[in-house]
């Protein structure tokens, strides 16, 4: 690393970390828009919060705070259940409330509360998408900076091999300096190779 200039060294502390899609989903379920804040999109999270929570609150108000009830409106409660904290608070504070008379906009209020819960499903899935996009970007940055292979040192030029003489099928050693080239080993006579006893 001594050969690299300081500007090319990766700064590990400046790279953003990975984020958990599971945590983003849980946060977005507890409070609409909080998953987006965790994913690094606070403006979008605020937009989601301002679209979903007032719709749910308006639905509660139009039904005189009686629409979140798993026993009476069990099917709608499936939609309400996608709003973690607002539905929990509504369950806690409106438990035991009874209607004296049906409000005029009761059905509209039920629709508001149910649609708000279903809208949070869309918001949670978008928060998951934001986290996945963020993690892809972090992975790309790390590949571009961290894991970039160090530049290879330029190898020294290899001198071209000297032309080698081939004597009787053997490579002759090139003479160097003043040392005399060794004499090639004498091949056995043809009569020796044939096993002639004479």
């Amino acid at each position: 690393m001594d050969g690299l200039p300081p500007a090319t060294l990766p700064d590990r502390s400046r790279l953003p970390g990975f984020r958990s899609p599971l945590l983003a989903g849980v946060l977005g379920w507890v409070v609409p828009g909080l998953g987006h804040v965790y994913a690094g999109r606070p403006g979008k999270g605020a937009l989601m919060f301002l679209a979903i929570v007032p719709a749910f609150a308006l639905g509660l108000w139009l039904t005189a705070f009686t629409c979140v009830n798993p026993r009476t409106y069990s099917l709608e409660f499936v939609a309400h259940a996608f709003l973690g904290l607002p539905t929990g608070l509504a369950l806690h504070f409106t438990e035991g409330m009874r209607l004296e008379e049906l409000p005029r906009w009761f059905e509209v209020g039920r629709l508001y509360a149910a649609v708000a819960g279903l809208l949070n499903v869309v918001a949670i899935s978008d928060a998951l998408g934001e986290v996945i996009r963020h993690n892809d970007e972090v992975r790309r940055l790390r590949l571009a900076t961290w894991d970039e292979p160090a530049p290879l040192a330029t190898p020294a030029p290899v001198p071209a091999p000297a032309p080698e003489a081939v004597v009787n099928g053997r490579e002759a050693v090139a003479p160097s300096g003043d040392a005399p080239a060794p004499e090639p080993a004498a091949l056995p006579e043809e009569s020796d190779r044939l096993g002639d006893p004479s």
Partner: protein
Amino acid sequence: VTWLDVAWFVPLMLAIAVVVGATGRNEAGEIRAAVRRRFLEFTVMVLAVGVVIRLVVIYLV
């Protein structure tokens, strides 16, 4: 069905348009345009359904 009944759907349509329009988009201008387009689509859809119901009531009931 009065205009007030229909008007109650406007905030709900706006909420749906905001969430659906913002989903999958990143730029503020892109989100604004998508929300406007969704809101217009929902408005036309609700008005069209309202008109159809009115006509059915007028001619068949």
